[in-house]
């Protein structure tokens, strides 16, 4: 079954962009939350990740701060 992928991002963050491009390249569907414009998503992100930076990526409940391609690849594809 496909894993649930969520990314909290801002439009101006290059790591967010790299992560989204990676998901597109790999055909991974993801939900995007723009924490620059969505205050509720911002609070939610800080709650689940205890962080104030983007991106935060959540894959089936596991939280990753920043985009480390190898780490995400391992989580997605084993």
């Amino acid at each position, binding site marked *: 079954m496909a894993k649930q992928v969520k990314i909290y991002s801002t439009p101006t*963050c290059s790591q967010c962009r790299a992560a989204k491009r990676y998901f597109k390249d790999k055909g991974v569907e993801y939900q995007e939350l723009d924490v620059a414009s969505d205050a509720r998503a911002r609070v939610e992100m800080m709650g689940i990740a205890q962080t*104030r930076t983007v991106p935060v990526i959540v894959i089936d409940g596991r939280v990753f701060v920043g985009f480390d391609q190898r780490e995400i690849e391992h989580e997605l594809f084993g």
Partner: protein
Amino acid sequence: MHDLMIIGGGPAAFSAAIYAARHRLDAVMIAPETGGQVAASWLVENYLGFPSISGIELAERFEEHFAHYKVRRIEERAEQLTRKEGGFIVTLESGQWVEGKASIVATGRSSRRLGIPGEAEFVHRGVTYCATCDAPLFADEHVAVIGGGDAALQAAAQLVPVAGRVYLVSRSPWRAEAALQARAAGAANLEALMGYVPLAIKGTEYVESLVIRAKEDHVERELPVRGVFVEIGAVPDGKLVDGLVDLNAAGEIVVDRSGRTSMPGLFAAGDVTDSPYKQAIMAAGDGARAAMAAWEYLLGVKG
């Protein structure tokens, strides 16, 4: 074995890749991210041909331009560069490796740390090195920007419309471009604190305050801020070739006017080198020059 390995993903590397392709070199570019420091810039207003463009868009233009040429790209970090007979080997973070007869190191720079108590503890919990990325997370809150150069003034300009109050803390008078200074100077919610040294960052879960001390009378102030934006310059990422080529005291790779390092076949370009004035447009020029020097070198090697 490739002709040329270009390590880096900023303007120097992209420009080198394009010149290498046009000289019909079999080149490979090794970089996990696109744009380098350009991608983290808010607005770029001094890159020829682009009166005003966001850093991320300019980085996209680099990529689009690069895509016109068939240059292999490996989106991984280069961990090590070593010499081998007839060329060099780059080890990647995945453990795989790439070989090339010549190489251009264009690994750029990364943010300089303050080195004060609380900084490491609160990274990503209020302490940030990328205002462009993280400024929107501090809507209506009080924040401090540390630094007085172009990047600091840009960070302040991004925070002014978003944050409640912006303290701009610098040891010395601002040395940013006059155009950037003018943009920050008029903001009602910006307080310029010149002549202050940052001492410590405090908080519990997230940052709650920044302690600074006046250079003149040593009086301390505790600024109630939720964000500390560190913009005090950058340090060269020359680790890859440490011990292999000459570095100067600042850790920059020493290059000649054609981008040659102290080792034949190994070139360097952009902000990682000892060339003066770190600017995107200069890095692009450096990259082009290093690629041409590498092409000449390879002609010689081929005999």
